């Protein structure tokens, strides 16, 4: 069996059409997950009664189980929960289930990253902010979050890349994102290796672009620390 190099290019062009769906499945959960993560971090940092144990369990459970199970649990579990509702679930696109599941996954991972970012802000700065008369929201918005987020850029990049790669399992619930498209092209032509090489290149290039963007953002976000020293 020889590799058909020409077919890699054919497959590449075909699979490229699936990139928007992959990006949608990767970035929507990260944005939603960021909001979830922020809320969860606040609950855990301020140790809110009743909510804090629930938040701890949420983070530990989602970090302790594979993402494929989150997708499957939502895919099979959510319709069961919503059975009584007047929604025709057959009309809900499967992509939405994937997005909901991955948002929950992202929320758990991001909350840990935000938490470690916040922990890196020195206590003295927070006290100083209070002494100049800022209230909690101002301290959070002006002192803690800008530093915590700048601190978190490398971890955040890892999550974005991780989620780009996690979307590949959506093909198991028949989504035609990059891996799904590769699988279809492969099966139609019985050229599996070539199709997956093409898909691999696509993921690799997107990853390299994200890494390049991230190093630019990190330099911008950390600009304050360079001028301060």
């Amino acid at each position, binding site marked *: 069996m020889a590799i058909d190099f020409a077919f890699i290019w054919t497959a590449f062009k075909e699979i490229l059409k699936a990139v928007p769906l992959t990006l949608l499945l990767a970035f929507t959960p990260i944005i939603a997950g960021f909001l979830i993560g922020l809320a969860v971090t606040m609950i855990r940092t301020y140790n809110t009664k009743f909510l804090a144990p629930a938040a701890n369990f949420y983070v530990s459970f989602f970090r302790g*189980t594979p993402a494929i199970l989150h997708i499957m649990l939502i895919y099979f579990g959510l319709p069961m929960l919503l059975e009584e509702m007047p929604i025709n679930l057959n009309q809900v696109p499967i992509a939405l289930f994937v997005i909901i599941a991955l948002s929950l996954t992202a929320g758990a991972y991001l909350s840990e990253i935000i938490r470690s970012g916040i922990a890196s802000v020195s206590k003295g700065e927070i006290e100083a902010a209070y002494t100049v008369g800022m209230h909690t929201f101002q301290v959070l918005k002006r002192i803690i979050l800008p530093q915590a987020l700048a601190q978190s850029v490398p971890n955040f990049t890892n999550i974005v890349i991780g989620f780009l790669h*996690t979307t590949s399992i959506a*093909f198991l619930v028949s989504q035609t994102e990059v891996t799904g498209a590769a699988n279809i092209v492969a099966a139609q032509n019985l050229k599996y*290796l070539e199709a997956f090489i093409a898909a691999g290149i696509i993921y690799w290039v997107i990853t390299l672009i994200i890494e390049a963007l991230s190093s630019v953002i990190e330099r911008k976000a950390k600009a304050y620390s360079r001028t301060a020293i």
Partner: protein
Amino acid sequence: MGKAFDPGLIFDFIPTLAKFLDITLVILFFSILFGIMLGIATAMLRLFRIPVLRQLAAIYISFIRGTPIIIQLFLVYYGLPALLNLFGIDLSRIDALYFVIVTYSLSNGAVFAEIIRSAISAIDQGQTEAAYTIGMTRRQNFFRIIFPQAARIAFPNMANSVIGSLKDTSLAFTIGVMDMMGRGETLIASSAHALEVYIALSVIYYVVVIVLEKGFKLYEKRLNRYQPEELAAVEGGIPVGH
């Protein structure tokens, strides 16, 4: 979509599925073992700046970091037989389990290489100089001075990768390996209770992860026993930036 939800089934499924935990752990064990060997070798190529091989190592690491594990799995599954066919070796009768171990070893190797490299380069040059001034050989310096300190730095990240790797093994069933997930798929086919199976699987993975985490935490404490209190208290896992 299957039959009505029956919580009692979850408890019936857990022992059935847990019997297949050994396959998952076998994959994990060997891929970590080979991954560490590959990681050390790759890290050395980069640390000692071996020409050509160093660039190849960088491409290997970048590729593994840049592609999903499932794509790597398919590439090995379809690519390795094609590659070895050129040398007249027939792999068509080999169990899919071996392909999974090869893939996860390659994947772990790249991740470990980066962890090991950054841990070793984090050790101050002065430590080596001090070791030489008291008459240690290069070997002694590495095993007594550099390695124990690097291990302490690398350990939390290694532990995280091991846990990540355990969760990644859940994709092995896509090329037909009969691990917990594979058994789960057959159980769904025969019982039509998908949700219960997936809940049972989540419980098993969750318990294994918690056990691993607890074990790693204990060992990390041991590695940190010579550290001053406050430094040892820094939580492992997510690398602390500067």
